[in-house]
């Protein structure tokens, strides 16, 4: 009786008790007992064939009782000499004990209880036997039969037990791969699909709770097995639904997420851990996403590539893309926040690549816009959506990913069209004397300058400071080099201590960014990639060529004819640039706040379809996915059909014509229980999807046509800037230098402290070797160049004209939003300045020189960060002069921000989410997230908060500029 309860409960303690009892009992005795019990069982089995007579429950429990005893003896038996079977096991194998037991139960009414009993029996002997049992077919075969009979319709208890047993089997597999072969062979005997234990696990992938977790763990074991075992990999990739289920499961889970988030406040901009922990559906989604991430990490490349392609084509494109184009702002904002969270949750580079190429390159069919740009343009909406989009971009920029930076910014800077020709050599130049930092800091509004502002924010004290000495935590590569700096400011000058923190953070940020960017393909220093080769016209051709190549050669070719992620044809296409340039011209800048509808109409975008409901194919996809997740999934023997469907889809993708659909369908052998149609609908979806893609292509080509006209218009408008003709460019240069010359001569008399002699001369003879002894006064060049600023300042205030295309839409929009800093809410400004500071920390000279080099001479059409800052300073000074209480307000704002800073510090130590807090941000003074309710000043006084923030931002930028002048010039190796 005790045994019975032991087995029934799976009670290990009970077993231990028995083990003690058994110890010392000699094997012969055990064998005798075993045979005895078995003889009793056989007697019952023969007498009471359940098919002929009703087996009394007495008999059943008697058998059960004997079986428990014999299994216990089997479990406790040690292997014989040299791994031979012990005598009991040998008997079990010879007499086919397990199979007879299984068949007996099968012949009775095979109820859930009986399944449970059998499953527990196997779980016990597999987990606890002292010798390998699974190597023996008479043990394995009935196990496989049991497993296949348990698939499909079973109660939750049986499911739990089944998964638990499968998990155990996977553990055995992981330890002993020789069993693997047997699993395959045994399944073949059954005429069922190969590798049953794997297939059985699939339906549980997305389960909640322990069952799901156990199933995922078990699958991961098999995944890592696949990395070494080609056969497993091939089987999973070719003959199972694993990848599609995983990917479409994401779609299913996604569909149960709230379509609108209840946002805690206006300042909210991204889903933090605290937020999503409150949302069970989101937790479940993230679990599955994490599982995908883990699979991609450990699985064989074939599986990895397939899964990635299904995630792209089965989740991102059909589900997330339309969700990003929902009709209401809240829905789109919610999707954007989800996307941001997903990108932050994914760590495996391949999966990250999938998300990024979706974000950066995918064209969605509904409005034929390149996705990223569409999302980006929302940065400029004055609604919360804009803030959430900003947060997404902050995440992207924090990845230190070359592709992201290339697509967003660098590709616009590579041709060097944003600067005067003569300035190309300046790109790599080093700012020895912190000239740029000084110029940036000189923009500090007078109401915030250290003299005027009462000091809650700075410590007035004399400083003696040194770097890299007894600060053990500051492990940067410079110190590692042994090349230490110990520099001390000994003078009795009162310093802004606050600034030291900015320097320290700048140092950390730049070092980690520089280190990360070592994997990049090019330095982006104005020479490599060579600007000449990447002029816009040349790029277009290259893009067209690339596109062709793309169609012929899929990006990542599969060894076998698998469905590929049909790479969006525009993958390598820079041509949409012109469309998006228009798209980017934001209505927000132009005038009063407009509604989204108006904005959409204005920006000449094709009107969005009234997508009250998602497109049909997505609905179907979703239904399918939900069924896969929630409903049953039975592996059928018609995987070959499945493969055929995939092949056809692949052919379809390769633009085999539309009418292939009917015949191809007919060639499908009808499956015996044609469940594939009703349950999965995968083929249907695939066909729809592919035909949609074709439509997509057609549409986009139409748009390209349309955009050409607009493009021509733009070209007209900006012909002086963008003309690819070198002749015109030279002419322009000449005009510009002429302008400089005249201005220079005008200004010469009033030109400040250093005599401005020969600016034009310097422009003409710019190359000066270090030891050269000529008389050029370089102070005029680097310190104050008022005559160069003239043409720039004249551009201020004329937003239309100064809207700068040559630096790309992303930077342009960032800058135009920054220009509105005084009207922006505090949290928007925090995000904006955060992103810009993050960009400024990148070591690539092209980016650095554009953002931080205040001496660069840009094309007149280009608005630089410095110009925007300068115009802000003017706006602030104006405000300060017209409002009497401005200084007081500034002080209260400073106090308010400071209080917030310290309250946030407490929170920061609690939440260990490191990705939410980049090193740059970690210690940013006064710049984190939204404040608690201020006491003395309303947040509505955006101009006051913006002024304080502006001043801090200047310090942050100056500190970054200063650290660049040191860090970026020390060789990394050595």
């Amino acid at each position, binding site marked *: 009786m005790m045994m019975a309860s032991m087995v029934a409960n799976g009670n290990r303690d009970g077993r231990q008790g028995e083990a003690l009892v058994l110890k010392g009992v000699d094997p012969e005795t055990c064998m005798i007992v075993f045979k005895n019990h078995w003889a009793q069982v056989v007697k019952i089995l023969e007498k009471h064939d359940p098919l002929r007579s009703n087996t009394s429950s007495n008999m059943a429990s008697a058998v059960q009782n004997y079986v428990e005893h014999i299994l216990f003896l089997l479990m406790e038996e040690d292997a014989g000499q040299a791994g031979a079977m012990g005598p009991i096991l040998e008997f079990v194998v010879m007499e086919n004990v397990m199979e007879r037991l299984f068949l007996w139960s099968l012949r009775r009414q095979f109820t859930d209880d009986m399944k449970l009993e059998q499953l527990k029996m196997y779980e016990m002997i597999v987990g606890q036997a002292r010798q390998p049992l699974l190597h023996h077919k008479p043990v394995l075969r009935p196990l496989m039969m049991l497993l296949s009979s348990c698939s499909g319709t079973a109660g939750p208890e049986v499911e739990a037990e089944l998964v638990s047993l499968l998990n155990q089997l996977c553990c055995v597999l992981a330890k002993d791969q020789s069993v693997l072969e047997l699993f395959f062979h045994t399944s073949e005997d059954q005429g069922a699909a190969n590798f049953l234990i794997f297939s059985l696990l699939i339906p549980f992938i997305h389960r909640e709770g322990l069952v799901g977790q156990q199933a995922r763990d078990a699958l991961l074991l098999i995944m890592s097995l696949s990395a070494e075992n080609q056969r497993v990999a091939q089987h999973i990739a070719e003959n199972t639904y694993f990848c599609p289920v995983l990917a479409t499961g994401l779609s299913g889970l996604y569909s149960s997420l709230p379509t609108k988030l209840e946002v805690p406040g206006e300042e909210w901009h991204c889903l933090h851990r605290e937020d999503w922990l409150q949302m069970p559906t989101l937790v479940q989604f993230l679990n599955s996403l994490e599982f995908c991430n883990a699979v991609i990490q450990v699985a064989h490349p074939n599986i990895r590539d397939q899964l990635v392609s299904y995630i792209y084509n089965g989740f991102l494109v059909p589900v997330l893309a339309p969700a990003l184009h929902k009709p209401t702002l809240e829905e789109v904002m919610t999707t954007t926040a989800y996307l941001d969270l997903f990108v932050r949750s994914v760590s495996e580079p391949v999966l990250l690549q999938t998300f990024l190429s979706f974000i950066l*390159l995918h064209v969605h069919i509904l409005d034929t816009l390149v996705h990223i740009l569409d999302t980006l343009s929302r940065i400029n909406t004055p609604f919360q959506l804009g803030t959430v989009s900003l947060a997404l971009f902050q995440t992207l920029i924090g990845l230190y990913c070359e*592709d992201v930076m290339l697509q967003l910014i660098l590709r616009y800077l590579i041709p060097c069209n944003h600067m005067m020709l003569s300035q190309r050599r300046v790109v790599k130049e080093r700012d020895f004397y912190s000239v740029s930092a000084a110029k940036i800091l000189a923009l500090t509004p007078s109401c915030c300058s250290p003299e005027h502002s009462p000091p809650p924010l700075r410590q007035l004290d004399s400083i003696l400071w040194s770097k890299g000495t007894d600060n053990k935590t500051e492990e940067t590569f410079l110190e590692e080099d042994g090349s230490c700096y*110990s520099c001390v400011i000994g003078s009795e000058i009162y310093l802004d201590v606050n600034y030291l923190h900015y320097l320290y953070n700048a140092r950390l940020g730049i070092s980690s960014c520089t280190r990360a960017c070592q994997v990049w393909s090019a330095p982006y220093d104005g020479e490599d990639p060579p600007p000449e080769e990447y002029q816009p016209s040349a790029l277009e051709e290259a893009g067209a060529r690339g596109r062709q190549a793309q169609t012929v050669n899929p990006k990542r070719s599969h060894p076998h004819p698998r469905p590929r992620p049909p790479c969006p044809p525009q993958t390598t296409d820079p041509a949409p640039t012109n469309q998006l340039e228009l798209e980017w011209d934001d209505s927000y800048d132009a005038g009063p706040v407009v509604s989204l509808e108006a904005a959409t109409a204005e920006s000449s975008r094709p009107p969005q379809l009234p997508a009250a409901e998602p497109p049909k194919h997505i609905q179907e996809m979703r239904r399918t996915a939900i069924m896969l997740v929630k409903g049953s999934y039975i592996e059928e023997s018609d995987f070959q059909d499945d493969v055929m469907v995939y092949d056809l889809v692949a052919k379809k993708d390769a633009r085999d014509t539309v009418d292939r659909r009917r015949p191809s369908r007919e060639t499908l052998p009808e499956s015996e229980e044609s469940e594939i149609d009703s349950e999965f609908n995968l083929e249907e979806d695939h066909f729809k999807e592919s035909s949609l893609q074709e439509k997509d292509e057609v549409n986009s080509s139409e748009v390209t046509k349309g955009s050409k006209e607009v493009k021509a218009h733009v070209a007209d408008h900006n012909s002086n800037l963008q003309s690819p003709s070198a002749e015109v460019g030279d002419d322009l240069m000449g005009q510009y230098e002429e302008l400089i010359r005249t201005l220079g001569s005008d200004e010469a008399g009033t030109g400040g402290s250093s005599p401005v002699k020969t600016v034009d001369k310097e422009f003409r003879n710019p190359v000066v070797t270090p030891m050269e002894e000529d008389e050029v006064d370089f102070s005029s060049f680097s310190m104050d160049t008022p005559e160069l600023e003239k043409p720039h300042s004249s551009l201020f205030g004329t937003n239309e004209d100064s809207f700068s295309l040559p630096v790309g839409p992303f930077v342009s929009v960032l800058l135009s939003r920054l220009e509105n800093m005084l009207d922006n809410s505090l949290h928007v400004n925090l995000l904006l300045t955060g992103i810009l500071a993050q960009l400024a920390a990148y070591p690539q000279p092209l980016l650095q020189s554009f953002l931080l080099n205040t001496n660069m001479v840009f094309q007149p059409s280009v608005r630089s960060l410095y110009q925007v800052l300068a115009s802000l300073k003017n706006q602030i000074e104006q405000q300060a002069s017209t409002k009497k209480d401005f200084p007081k307000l500034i002080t209260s704002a400073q106090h308010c921000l400071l209080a917030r800073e310290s309250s946030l510090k407490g929170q920061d130590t609690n939440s260990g989410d490191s990705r939410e807090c980049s090193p740059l941000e970690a210690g940013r003074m006064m710049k984190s997230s939204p404040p608690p309710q201020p006491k003395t000043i309303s947040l509505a006084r955006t101009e006051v908060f913006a002024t304080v923030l502006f001043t801090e931002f200047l310090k942050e930028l100056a500190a970054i500029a200063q650290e660049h002048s040191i860090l970026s010039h*020390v060789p990394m190796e050595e």
Partner: protein
Amino acid sequence: TYLNDFWEKGRSDGEEQSGEQQQPRASPARPSFGKKQLPSIPKNAVPITKPASPAAMAQLANGTHASYGPFYLEYSLLAEFTLVIKQKLPGIYVQPSYKSALMWFGVIFIRHGLYQDGVFKFTVYIPDNYPDGECPRVVFDIPVFHPLVDPVSGELDVRRAFTKWRRNHNHIWQVLMYARTVFYKINTMEPLNPEAAVLYDKDVQLFKSKVVDSVKLCNSHLFDQPKMDDPYAISFSSWNPAIHDEAKERMFTHKRRPEDHQKGLQVSGLSWVKPGSTQPFSRDDNPPLS
């Protein structure tokens, strides 16, 4: 390779240098200089609030720049120092002092020529209006017998090479380079040490023997306490395995470290850009699973 030279030199001369100069972190505990000190830059520290005295405010009257001036100076000098490191001047080692970034300690090893085997310690003084002032001064601890070195003060005539110090053109490494060159190419025009100049022109043999004496004298004072009481002053001591073996070990192993360092790093960049392309995700191969 210069480290090797450094050590070979030390050994062949029977003199051993402490590795300390290259490793200021291992320097002795700092004496207090009677100033308020920020020992380390604390992370996330809240600025301490302290009321400003009216006197303090007055000092700032000349504008915002004043309060950041020292930072600019400091970073200019740091930039200069990184340039020196980059140049890898043969046989020259410098290190800014602890007390002031405007004072650098240095030592120069002469490997051939008239001054062969000379080990000369010197100090570089940088004007506090750098880079807009005069050129930096170089003063040898012991006045070397040389036409361009003042026999009393030990100052090298640097200004003849840098008549006007020009920002962006002139850098401190050039001064150091010049200080080295003068020992290989003797110039007797307008000498600071007329005796040496005359001897070189009239009686080279006597000049040579005087140089040998001078080199001996300098080397005999090598183990003297540094002239300046500064934790980062360069000091030589005889080989002490207890101290120097470890330092030596570190110097020879640290070259391998950056790679190891990188492997262990969690934060790393991403790139799927094919070299030579400017298209995102243009690389043919899959990104490596790392």
